[in-house]
């Protein structure tokens, strides 16, 4: 009977991000190969033909520095590229031009929130490299197993963001990934779509008995193509490694692949080839002297970061949950800020846009968040609503109509006629509703608050939202009091 040991999990993430540039990292081929037939975005350079030479894409360097700045990194004045040697058929030169000891960005941090608590994850480095070709394993026309190479992806600009092993739980890892994706999109350096491989997260994870010093045995887990997969893979690894520890079995340093179907990680070791990358300075590329002016220009070119914007909106009274959702989407956030600029209150604008506007947008065939409705119009609709000139229900309908017709909020409200606040008319309707809903009336008398809401809803339905909610609720109350 042994006492169960407590275990500590140490997770570090290596995130590869395809940068959004026109051309590839070291050649002029178009970087956007997503919808291109295989091998149509290929030149002697990215095909690794003899005698060709790389030339650095300035925009890729700038994107990397932008990312480093957004992650509070230091941008050293001197950076260089190195050759990372490894032999795999999808690596055209059998070395990857990457950065070894002098990356573009170092020593940053990234704050992630999980269940209200904020954790600061250290960013070791952000460096620039090139992507590999795509290998697919098939049964060829002649029935033989074969691998096919599509070189389009070879040489696409790839940025690697390496975190410190500061992550403790799968939830933190997922939060890091989701927030990082939002940030990358926010600053416009990548589409960061996991589905098409623009964002790939590998995890280094080890489980250690509490109290024991953390050694460097690392299991690297790959092939997670969604945040959910990332979480599940890490959960599985924690269980697997803990179990091994408990059985007193060693944990080997290895690379394991996440297998979605079996929900397990599997060792990826092929024939045991020794690994030694033999990095050395890339002789074909002179070093980069990153002058401060370049960094400053890039810094001033960055938008305000989502955290800052969120803080402001929350301070102005917007609900945190809605804000958190809003800042996942920069265009929608910018739109919201414009609506606020046009006079709407932050709290109203955020909540209403996150819920109503997005509902309406999704209802539209064009799912893009670029709405044809100018922010000022949304502001004036919100104003009408605030004045009670439009009920919430009606506001939604008005919005839909604005999308469909492009008419202004005021016009539409005009056409629908003013709200019914004429006492007699409303009173008649209220009495009718009370008549038809004895049960609700009883509930109200038994003090069930929801009953009043229900009765009001009935009135609103009959008046097609044209009644002033305030007026209706006072009417019903007084009616029910007098008819005790």
């Amino acid at each position, binding site marked *: 009977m042994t006492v169960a040991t407590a275990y500590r999990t140490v997770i570090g993430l290596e995130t590869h991000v395809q940068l959004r*540039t*026109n*051309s590839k990292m070291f*050649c*002029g*081929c*178009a970087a956007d190969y997503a919808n291109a*037939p*295989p*091998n*149509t*975005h*290929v*030149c*002697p350079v990215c*095909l690794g033909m003899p005698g060709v030479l790389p*030339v*650095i*894409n*300035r*925009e*890729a*360097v700038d994107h990397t520095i932008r990312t480093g700045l957004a992650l509070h990194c230091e941008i050293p004045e001197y950076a260089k590229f190195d050759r990372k*040697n490894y*032999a795999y*058929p999808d690596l055209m030169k*059998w070395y990857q031009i990457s950065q070894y000891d002098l990356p573009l960005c170092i020593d940053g941090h990234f704050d992630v929130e999980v269940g209200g608590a904020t954790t600061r994850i250290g960013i070791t480095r952000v460096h620039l490299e090139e992507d590999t070709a795509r*290998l*697919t*394993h098939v049964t*060829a*026309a002649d029935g*033989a*197993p*074969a*691998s*096919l*190479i*599509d*070189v389009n992806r070879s040489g696409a600009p790839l940025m690697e963001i390496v975190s410190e092993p500061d992550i403790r739980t799968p939830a933190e890892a997922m939060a890091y990934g989701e927030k990082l994706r939002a940030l990358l999109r926010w600053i416009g350096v990548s589409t960061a779509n996991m589905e098409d491989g623009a964002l790939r997260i590998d995890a280094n994870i080890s489980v250690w008995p509490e109290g024991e010093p953390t050694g460097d045995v690392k299991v690297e887990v790959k092939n997670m193509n969604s945040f959910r997969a990332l979480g599940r893979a890490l959960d599985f690894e924690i269980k697997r490694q803990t179990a091994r520890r408990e059985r007193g079995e060693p944990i080997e340093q290895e690379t394991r*692949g996440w*297998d979605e179907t079996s929900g397990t990680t*599997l*060792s*990826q*070791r*092929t*024939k045991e*080839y*020794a690994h*030694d990358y*033999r990095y050395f*300075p890339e*002789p074909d*590329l*002179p*070093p*980069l*002297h990153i002058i401060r002016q370049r960094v400053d220009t890039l810094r001033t070119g960055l938008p305000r970061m989502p955290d800052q914007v969120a803080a402001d909106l929350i301070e102005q009274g917007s609900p945190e949950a809605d804000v958190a959702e809003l800042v996942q989407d920069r265009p929608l956030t910018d739109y919201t800020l414009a609506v606020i600029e046009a006079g709407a209150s932050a709290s109203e604008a955020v909540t209403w846009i996150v819920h109503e506007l997005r509902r309406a947008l999704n209802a539209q065939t064009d799912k893009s968040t670029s709405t044809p409705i100018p922010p000022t119009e949304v502001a004036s609709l919100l104003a009408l609503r605030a004045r009670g000139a439009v009920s919430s229900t009606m506001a939604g309908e008005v919005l839909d109509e604005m999308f469909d017709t492009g008419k202004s909020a005021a016009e539409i409200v005009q056409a629908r006629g003013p709200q019914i606040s004429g006492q007699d008319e409303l009173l008649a309707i209220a009495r009718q509703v009370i008549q038809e809903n004895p049960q609700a009336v009883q509930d109200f008398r038994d003090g069930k608050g929801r009953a009043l809401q229900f009765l009001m809803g009935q009135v609103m339905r009959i008046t097609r939202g044209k009644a002033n909610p305030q007026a209706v609720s006072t009417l019903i109350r007084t009616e029910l009091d007098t008819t005790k």
Partner: protein
Amino acid sequence: MSIDRSQVDHAAELARLALSDDERERLRGELGQILQAFEALNTLDTEHIPPTAQVIPLGNVERDDKVADSLPLDSVLANAPRVEDGQIRVPPVLEGS
């Protein structure tokens, strides 16, 4: 400096060179002889000497992010030993797992 067979085998594996036993044996001797000659470098005090990776002082050689023509598909594949569906076909990569 003498080299043992395992060092030769290791380097050959890293370099992905399939070598015959004779070749490995010959290389073991030659590498030892050559590495011996390298020892001369250790007789110099280079502690405070900066390394030279490139001889002419250049820096910040970058290009504008402009798209240039790629090769036509047929010349991408023209030299490929084997082609299938517009892709380069190679013998199967035997994955682990």
